[in-house]
């Protein structure tokens, strides 16, 4: 067993085990932490494949942003997952049935797999070895796939505009800090002198 395959079994084993723990853990916060562990090990698998850019993106995007967001949501929403899971067993027969049907379908599809004649040629272009992953991706992303890249950008823009259109409200009566008004306050505007008569108060 080479070092690479030893690491493969290490990463793969931990990834599967932590993925299982994601759905088995009682505490949702623990689930998210196991999810992060699963992401790290998947990143390790990418490294073994020589896809170091994807590995880093997986850690940065999924661990750094998505999983942390999950963690915040889980903590803020205070969902009682133990309650949700009650009666889990009563869905087991129907869930199991669906699972078996999907398994049978998968076996049927994989069993009758026929590779198109042009498919091997399409995947023959392996990752170039003399340049880094990021450079190889960049070379096709901004040339061959320029249209797709720009369109994805437009789609994200629409999503952003849409979220603002549908949710942003300017509420009346909310007091906001107005720095210009604060700075422009003069003694005359902010201060008034009263002559208080003794024994009467204001």
């Amino acid at each position, binding site marked *: 067993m080479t070092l690479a395959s030893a690491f493969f079994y290490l990463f793969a084993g931990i990834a599967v085990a932590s993925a299982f723990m994601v759905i088995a853990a009682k505490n949702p916060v623990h689930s998210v932490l196991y999810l992060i562990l699963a992401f790290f090990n998947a990143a390790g698998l990418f490294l073994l494949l020589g896809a170091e850019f994807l590995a880093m993106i997986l850690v940065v995007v999924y661990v750094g942003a998505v999983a942390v967001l999950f963690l915040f949501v889980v903590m803020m929403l205070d969902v009682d997952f133990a309650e949700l899971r009650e009666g889990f067993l009563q869905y087991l027969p129907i869930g199991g049935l669906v699972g078996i049907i999907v398994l049978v379908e998968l076996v049927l599809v994989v069993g009758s797999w026929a590779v198109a004649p042009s498919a091997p040629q399409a995947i023959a272009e392996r990752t170039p070895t003399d340049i880094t992953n990021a450079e190889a991706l960049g070379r096709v992303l901004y040339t061959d796939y320029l249209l797709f890249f720009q369109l994805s950008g437009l789609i994200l823009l*629409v999503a952003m505009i849409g979220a603002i259109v549908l949710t942003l409200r300017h509420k009346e009566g909310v007091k906001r800090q107005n720095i210009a008004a604060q700075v422009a306050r003069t003694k005359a505007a902010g201060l008034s002198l009263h002559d208080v008569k003794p024994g009467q108060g204001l």
Partner: protein
Amino acid sequence: MNGQFFADLAPALPEMLLAGGALLMVLVGAIGGDRSSGLINVLAAILLLAAGAALVTASPETKVLFNGAFTWDAYARFLKVLVIGGALIALIMSFDYLRHEKLQRFEYAILVVLSTTGMLIMISASDLIALYLGFELQSLALYVIAAIHRDNLRSTEAGLKYFVLGALSSGMLLYGCSLIYGYAGTISFAGIAQSVQAGNAPTGLIFGLVFLFAGLAFKVSAVPFHMWTPDVYEGAPTPVTAFFAAAPKVAAMSVFVRVAIDAFPNILDQWRQIIVFISIASMMLGAFAAIGQSNIKRLLAYSSIGNVGYILVGLSAGTSNGVQSVLIYLTVYVIMTLGCFAVVLCMRTKDGRLVENVDDLAGLARTQPLMGFVMAMMMFSLAGIPPLAGFFAKFYVFLAAIEAQLYWLAVIGVVTSVVGAFYYLRIVKIIYFDEATIEFQRMPFELKAIIALTGAFVLFYFIFPAPMVAVAGAAANSLF
């Protein structure tokens, strides 16, 4: 980067104009806020006009751009002009409505422009990724403008329903694309056509084809993927519904035709079964379900489902004549729909309320003669009564089906259009023979112009049918 680079990109000029213009409008809107909505509406209309002008003046010579993702040909030009025309008229129709309903939000016009950009990309898409990205750009903007009246329960419901079901259909579309890619080994339509030969098409690929067509059928609202249409049409603000009925339907139908003809020409017999089935189901549902409707927007929704059925009859022929009939039908359909919705937008009572029941049209011929006459002509045309434009549209579609020896499909089409004539003629009866109960406000100028123009087209199309038939024929030929 030099002159040649830009010259090569020239066929994508309309898309670049719209996308760049949308970014500019976002900037103007961000600085000016909702006060600048009037300015942005005008800017959007000018942009659409400029993109349309760029399309009309471009040469229809076939060109392939972006590494095979984008095809420019006479077919794309025809449909892009139609989509931009539909979007422009729907946008102009919305101005008066937005003023009345105090919905002056600058994002509305921007989203219409971005959605139109997506539609143009869809029409030119010649590989699966461009197809999907075009679809998403288009639909995402549509989900938002369906719910733009966010304080109105029905509008938000329409937006949410459209979004959830649209996401589901996108999932099916993507699943189909992935299966097709897996079996064909390529995403480009030409490559798929090459790898899929008649007789030995793998089952997995047919599977993918079915899913892809299911996703497309959702977007054109063909039965059995039509459920969202009546609710979304009824709930969305009326000018938004007009936009939905005109532009996205044309774009989705054009993708449907291009995928079927360009990517799967060798397995025509396989996909024809699917198209024939959804075509018959749509025609039947459109004819029968509309009978009981009392809301005119719902009625037009069922009418559009039926019309999609007729358009698919043309596609199921799978010939150049079939595609030509699809193009003619789409043009006539867009013009009739915009005319109908312009009338619906004029149904504003004296106290400023917009009514949308069929019975509110009672006696329209006496209170508003022009509006009543045009609406009646639209209904006759939708029912397919000669010599109006709708008759010719149906005529070409059925002719193409008969030439492809789909006799019984044509017979079913004729029978369902007779059934459909019942509810169209009922509206004519209400307009001409019932007693008026409501008096409407004066029509705004732009709506009056649209009603007059669409009415004139429907009425006088039979005098000069040749130019459009010739252009549609050239466009259809560029696909084969």
